[in-house]
């Protein structure tokens, strides 16, 4: 089988934070349409890794390639193909759900029909004209998911995507951001069992360093647990 070009390639990625190291010498390759799950305690560098991949942070050393483009120089070329979901919903509380999505649609050159489609799919159509400040946390998260996939990205970067979602809501967003969506995904997780199930590749970070990197089917839960001790 011919080798597929990687969706994400990291080679010695290093990023400092002040005098400390946030990420040190991270090297890995993610094939297209597969899922990389990143485990590790708080402060291990998971969010930093996602932000570097999202072109929001530049690497201090090492090489980063996303969809064949080298960051940070060619970041502009891949920005429109990356979807980023983080702890902050990146939504304006004083605007309505629909207005927020339309704002992002304009910024990404996406038709408004897509906004309506997504609102329907996550079950927010009825509340779409209410201000986001009136939404529950679960609704905000659902709207944030819409924002992340609005422009149909090839790569999804998800920082604890199921936070604040009840099982019904999680089901609604699953086709959009789950493994079945066919996109390349990098997901952070604090759930060893659940995380391993959806992963193709598992990365364990601690203190910015790679403690574990292996295909998910060869990793046991207890190895993930060990990261937290």
């Amino acid at each position, binding site marked *: 089988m011919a080798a597929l070009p990687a969706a994400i390639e990291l080679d010695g990625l290093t990023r400092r934070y002040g005098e400390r190291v946030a990420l040190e010498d991270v090297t890995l390759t993610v094939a297209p349409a597969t899922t990389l799950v990143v485990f590790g305690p708080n402060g291990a560098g998971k969010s930093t890794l996602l932000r570097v991949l999202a072109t929001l942070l530049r690497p201090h050393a090492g090489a980063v390639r996303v969809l064949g483009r080298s960051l940070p120089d060619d970041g502009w070329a891949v920005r*429109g193909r990356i979807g980023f979901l983080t702890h902050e919903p990146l939504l304006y509380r004083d605007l309505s759900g629909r207005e927020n999505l339309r704002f992002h649609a304009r910024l990404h050159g996406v038709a408004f029909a897509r906004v309506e489609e997504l609102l329907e799919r996550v079950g927010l159509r009825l509340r779409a004209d209410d201000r986001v400040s009136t939404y529950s946390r679960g609704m905000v998260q659902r709207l944030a998911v819409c924002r992340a996939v609005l422009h149909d990205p090839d790569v999804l970067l998800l920082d604890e995507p199921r936070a604040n979602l009840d099982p019904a809501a999680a089901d609604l967003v699953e086709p959009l951001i789950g493994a079945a969506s066919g996109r390349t995904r990098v997901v952070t997780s604090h759930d060893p069992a659940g995380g391993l199930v959806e992963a193709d590749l598992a990365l364990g970070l601690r203190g910015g360093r790679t403690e574990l990197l292996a295909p998910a089917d060869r990793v046991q839960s207890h190895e993930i647990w060990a990261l937290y001790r």
Partner: protein
Amino acid sequence: MSAPATEPASTAPDAAPPEPRYVPLRTAVRALLRKELALELRAPQAVPAMALFSVTTLVVFHFALQRGVVDGDLASGVLWVTLLFAAMLGISRLFVADHEEGGLDGFLLAPTDRTALLVAKAVGLFAFLVALEVVAVPAFALLLLGPSPSFGAYAQLAVLLLLADAGIALVGTLVGAIAVQTRTRDLIVPLMALPLLIPVVIAAARGTSPLVLQGGSQGLEVRWLFVLGLYDLVFGLLAYALFDYLIED
């Protein structure tokens, strides 16, 4: 062969990276401006505060100067100090909404030129300043101004105001972007912006003085327009060159 831009990630091998998506500057600026104005209309913060502050300042001036009317140099000074200090409020608020609601990241993820944010913020601040003046100038004329300038004089004042507003908007966008990252935001803005705006004060105040003379308005000296124009040009170029460094990373 590269995959078409709108299909989801395909599993066929790609020979080249996918086509970059790109949204033109004008579209991005329009989108950002709409958002700015929508937010200000929906949850008014900057403009009402600035307008109210300017009226209050005029009242304070009345008591501080112990006069019922002012004209000439004094009138010009009162007007410009009032406008400038009210502008400080607007500048302090300029990036706060984005900073607090993570909106800046939302923009940084978009496939467009960073300069769009500079343009949108500067135009937005310019619009807020014009809105401020729509309230402040009549209030000034009503409360403190002795002479009644002719329509022509008001027209010349308007030109001066527009040029000065452009300078304040550009400096305000730069300083506002710096200040929003500091912990002492409301202190840093006036400390940094006021010295930078002194050339604007000089040109604007000097230019306004002959327009509000007791004995009847005399013409506006064109050199003050040139000074303001030069200032706007220099700060426009500076902002264009430096703004990206303030919002990246």
